[in-house]
């Protein structure tokens, strides 16, 4: 009896502790991807800066995520910042040495009361290590910003960068 109770309590508490946090942060919809795979990133933006509406969303593309293409959004201007990569990556036989390093959706209007998603896709390099992969992101508003750029992985981080977990993938196709 007691054992059943203990097990149930442990299960419930673990579930609660693990599932609650994704609520009001800027987060990615799909939390896991295989190394070497193509990934469709959906960044969820749940609120503005305090009460202000978000006008710009900037996402940094870290080394190792290449062949990046953002999805245009009605009502937002879409730009990318490109530059050389530190390494070189193989895109179906073509060697890629430069590409998108930052995506900027600007001149939009996302009021604090509403919610929106920002989509881009790309490929995780086969040379990446398993573990957390962060996409530091910034929401800019008229008089301030929300910088989701904490990549310490700390449980108590106030503004963690959106992240996913990379796992070992199958051999290259």
């Amino acid at each position: 009896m007691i054992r059943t109770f203990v097990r149930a309590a442990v299960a419930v508490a673990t579930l609660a502790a693990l599932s609650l946090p994704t609520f009001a942060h800027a987060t990615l919809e799909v939390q896991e991807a295989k190394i070497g795979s193509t990934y469709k990133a959906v960044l969820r933006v749940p609120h503005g800066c305090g009460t202000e509406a978000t006008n710009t969303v900037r996402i940094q593309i870290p080394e190792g995520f290449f062949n990046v293409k953002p999805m245009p959004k009605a009502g937002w201007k879409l730009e990318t910042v490109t530059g050389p990569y530190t390494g070189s990556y193989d895109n179906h036989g073509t060697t890629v040495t430069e590409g998108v390093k930052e995506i900027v959706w600007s001149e939009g209007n996302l009021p604090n009361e509403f919610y929106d998603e920002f989509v881009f896709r790309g490929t995780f390099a086969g040379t990446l290590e398993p573990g957390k992969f962060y996409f530091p992101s910034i929401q800019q508003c008229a008089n301030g910003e929300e910088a989701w750029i904490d990549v310490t992985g700390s449980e108590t981080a106030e503004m963690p960068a959106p992240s996913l977990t990379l796992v070992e993938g199958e051999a290259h196709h």
Partner: protein
Amino acid sequence: MAHLWRRVGSALGFAWLFLLVLCAPAWAHAQLLESEPVADSILLTNPGELRLHFNEPVTPLAMALIAPDGTAIDLLSATSGGEKLTIVLPQDLADGSYLLSWRAASIDGHPIGASMVFSIGAVTQTQAAPSGDPLVAPLFWAGKAALFLALAFGIGTAAFGRVAPLPPRAIAIAQVFVLIGFCAAVLTLSLQGLDALGQPLTAALSPPVWATSLGTSYGITACVLALAFLLSLLGLRHRNQAGAALIILSAILAPLALALSGHASAAAPQVLTRPAVFLHVAGILFWLGALIPLAMLLATNSDAADAALRRFSRAIPMAVAAIILSGITLATVQLGQPGSAWLSPYGVILAAKLLLLLLVFGLALYNRRRLTAPALAGEAAMRRRLRCSILAEIVLVTLILGLVAGWRFTPPPRALAVAATVAEPIFAHVMDDRLMAMLSISPGQAGPASITIDLMDADMAPLAVQGVQLALSQPERGIEPMAQTAIGADSTWQVNGLTLPFGGSWTVILTVRLSAFEQRSVTGTLDLP
């Protein structure tokens, strides 16, 4: 056997629950948009009420106002509202600086908290120590003393059972001590919270008290100690291999727990002091844990008694060496330079402890040189005398542990030495492997102050950054972080118009925005007189 493992499983399950509670994440979602009055403002009269305006409805968890005389006023019951919290202030507030420390849960259940200072009439210092319930301190002392005794004669005795078989009565006594220890760990955890918030004993079960206590370094110590006592109890009840493993685990956890908090562990350099505390406590546990079983065994004239005494005398020189070396290290760090600070209550307690210790060592040496060999040879008179001498040791050691429990209430001279300097700017270094910040607090005392922050990289060259945030908190007193945004450019930043309501050890968290997408946080302490 299977039954035992089920119990161990349950115990581990509880431990996991415990950890989850401890690690309850502080993800912050609700944000404080503005406050009335604004932080660090000086008001002509008592504003009657305070307002905190958030971006979403919050549930207040703790609302403490710390008055200029150091008393903490619990204003949780005077707080109402959701998105806009209104806190009704008492009518009779004296002039001076007040600190409001609040904690609230946002919609998704995660707690956030912060502090702000405002002054009525004039900016003053707030007294460092909140005056809480007068019963809390003596109870805390008694709880600590009970904890130490339970460590020595509960976990220590259980652990000695791994050196030599324990007589059944010694097992019974150890079980009682271990139970006392568990209760004392829980009791002191609550008292720590009461002490930090300056609350009366009647608030012992209130959630803010526990939340505060668990947030302090002692919270982790008490939790690990409670776990060690539980494991030891399980081990004592199951006299098989699994039980033995639990006892050894608890004997490692107990000194580890004490090394996690306290004056000594907090002293720099921690690389030195924390292992020293661990060794000191581990050595003491081995020595004191042997006393009760030996005294009992020596009452009989058995081979078991001889074997236990022989093993004890072979191992004890190593334990004593560990105790003395680590003890000297810690005393040197804690006492600092010779001077009048040595006559502080801390110094007096240390002197009394050393005096009693000399007596104990004298007895121990006498036992070893004069009594052990003849006792082993079977001389009845010598065995009786050795037994009396061990009983005397137990009494003296109990006195010493009682004294040591009193240390909780006396700051060591190293802290007093820092406190003696007045008004000169105080400097603090906060750094990690890539970033160093030099903080200069002027004037270097409680009250209105400004902080200059100079940033350097690992090669000591000035480091230009885009922004700097400073958060000051005193987790030991349940004071939530006061966040300040620094103004400036490049490598020099400044926080002006800050009011540090009282001295003590402030935890500084500096968050530096290196570029648009990169930030680093460094943590350090600022000892303010």
